[in-house]
């Protein structure tokens, strides 16, 4: 995997669900400052990314799960890996559920949600069998299209901007902005990229690619949030199930270019796919490490089946999931995005220090 591919995958991971889901929460908490909340989320993500880069340096050549075994020992490491496996599983499952809800509530209302999800999952299984390298190439193929659709969305919306909608700035102070930013930053799950670092052909440019993908992804996210506020206004951004889609629905250029939201759905489906696949591959790696499998590809079908079950059972209805996202998800995600990586890093540092000490101790 080259560093450009790594960049694109990081980008896909950042944008994935967030583009559909976060604007609404940001607008609800930070009101007119939703876009500032997005920027705050970016800052928090940068911090987390710096931490992950530190982890990679501390455990060279290891993927995320390998790091845990190095840091916590074999069995405790496996236990932590299992935690992450479940985390990724729930993530990918809700992603699949989200996709099903989005497609069936906005585009294909009479299609059974299971069919949408199974078709999507079938594509995922195919991709999983071919391996991460193929996904990376697919990412390269998709990337120009994602950019193209995004540019269409942004350019077509420019005439509808109401600059008034952005004022007042910082009405409630920094508090709501930071809260909103924290919540938003829990949906990019950049730690997933740590799983794939060992598969890079060279480690020379990877940090740039990682931070670049993250930055570029956030550029997209923040502009979608900004446009939601500038065009829909905060009330409707906060009250829409899928604000970004509502945004696409308002496109009308000279009564000619309109009703193109159907095409723009491709934007979301593509980023959804990238993100789901990243999680899928992470789970395969996780299962391989935990169970000591010879090849990660044994895990494809079991994961696919469990994923479908998780999707059906977590995404009961959009209100329930909204409640979970608001109340539970922030803390749950933080354990995996911040707390455990910190512990891992601390343990790694401690072990290195002890090793140096013992090496120094021997000659004397």
């Amino acid at each position, binding site marked *: 995997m080259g560093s450009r591919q790594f960049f694109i995958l990081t980008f896909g991971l950042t944008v994935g669900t967030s583009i559909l889901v976060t604007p609404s929460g940001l607008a609800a908490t930070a009101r007119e400052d939703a876009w500032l909340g997005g920027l705050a989320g970016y800052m928090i993500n940068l911090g987390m990314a710096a931490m992950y880069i530190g982890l990679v340096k501390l455990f060279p050549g290891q993927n995320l799960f390998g790091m845990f075994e190095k840091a916590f020992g074999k069995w405790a490491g496996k236990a932590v890996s299992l935690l992450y496996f479940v985390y990724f599983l729930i993530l990918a499952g809700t992603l699949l559920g989200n996709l099903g809800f989005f497609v069936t*509530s906005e585009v294909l209302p009479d299609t059974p949600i299971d069919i949408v999800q199974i078709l999507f999952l079938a594509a995922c299984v195919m991709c999983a069998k071919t391996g991460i390298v193929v996904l990376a190439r697919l990412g390269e193929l998709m990337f120009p299209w994602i950019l193209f659709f995004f540019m269409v969305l942004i350019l077509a919306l420019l005439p509808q901007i109401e600059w008034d909608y952005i004022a007042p700035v910082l009405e409630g102070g920094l508090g709501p902005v930071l809260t909103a930013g924290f919540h938003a930053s829990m949906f990019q799950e950049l730690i997933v990229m740590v799983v794939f670092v060992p598969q890079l052909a060279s480690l020379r440019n990877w940090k740039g690619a990682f931070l670049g993908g993250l930055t570029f992804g956030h550029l997209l996210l923040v502009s979608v949030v900004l446009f939601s506020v500038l065009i829909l206004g905060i009330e409707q951004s906060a009250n829409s199930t899928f604000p970004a889609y509502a945004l696409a629905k*308002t496109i009308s250029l000279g009564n000619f270019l309109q009703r193109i939201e159907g095409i723009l759905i491709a934007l979301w489906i593509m980023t959804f796919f990238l993100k789901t696949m990243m999680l899928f591959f992470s789970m395969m790696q996780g299962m391989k490490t935990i169970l000591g499998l010879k090849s990660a590809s044994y895990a494809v079908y079991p994961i696919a089946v469990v994923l479908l079950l998780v999707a059906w059972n977590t995404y009961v209805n959009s209100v329930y999931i909204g409640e979970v996202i608001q109340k539970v998800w922030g803390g749950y995600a933080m354990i995996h995005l911040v707390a455990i990586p910190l512990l891992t890093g601390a343990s790694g540092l401690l072990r290195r220090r002890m090793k140096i000490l013992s090496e120094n101790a021997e000659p004397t």
Partner: protein
Amino acid sequence: MKERLRGLMLAGLLLHASLLTGCWNRRELNDLAVVVALGVDLEETGYLVTAQVVNPNEVRSQRSSSGSASVVTYTEKGVSIPDALQRMLGKVPRQLYLSHLRVMVFGESLARKGLIDVLDYAAREHDLRNDFYMLVAKGSKARDVLSVVTPFEKIPAESLFSSIMVSNKKWAATGRIKLQHFITVLDRGGSNPVLSGVRVEGDKKKGRNNDFLREIRPETMLKHEGLAVFRKDKLVGWLGEDDSKTVNYMINNVSGTTGFVPCPGRGKGSIGVSIMQSKTSIKAVKGEDGKPAFKVRHVLEANVDDVQCELDLSDPGSITLIEKELEDLARGNTASNIREVQRKFASDIYGFGEALHRQMPKEWAKYKSEWDSYFKTAKIEVNVEVALRKVGSILQPLKKDMEGQ
């Protein structure tokens, strides 16, 4: 063995292809009844819903029509709108399709009672897009409005739709309001929405029959008339033509209209001007009593349309004179129209509260909860700046030329 496997795979591939032929919930054009207008009226137990559906055989222009109307209007009662629409399927031979809706009309009595429940449905229903206009049937039921056949356009809903577009663009006394805009204005504090009114002019019963269109001067017509003032989601009153224009000026929804000023000095007659550009901004300031007050700055660009006086138009002084007069007139007009809405309806349809919110958020917090009652007495100062640009194809007024001989 290998051959068989290959055959099996081929069969599998072919089976896959059968999945790709169409969507699950495809809707063929000849299974659909395209709803172009939806009317909602109040009914004792819920709503009376009227759907104007296109009759595809009659809209086709190629073939001579069989004389039946090009749209059919169905009405049905229901506890909710979807309920009524479902029940309507007992009469309509095809599935109702709402995505191509052009107008949604509310009966006045419903609008007076509150639109919020209807709006909830309209915003929630995914088939409805955001490109239809909303209207209030002035002094009648929405059903009556949607039962009138229109000349010129075969589909009455289309006629309503395009006449809103045109009249709003060229006349500025009607409102071009879409669902999303209405909800935004409604939801945020410090502004109240307006909707454009439509009235049936002439005999309602006669208007239903296609035959009356054979006359060169059809007796029954649909007419856009004034804006309806809402306080929150409830209609509280109607504005006349002049007040409606003021509202459109204030919310920067004027792309062109006409106006006139009396001839300067003595003499009868007036000078007509057409407004080419208009931009209004509201500035919230702290008044002398410490309470919020507002300064409206209205910049107009106009051309001279017709001149009924003996004025020397080659003199730059005359232009300044007209500008000055236009400024005075517009200032007085706008100020008194705003005052009237303040006094009569106590509904902030101009968005002064919103301006306060955006410009002085701390002040806003104090008045937020009872904005409409504060708005009633708020001090508002209007300033108009007019720039006259063109005088048309001739320079001197013909009247002056004639008298001069």
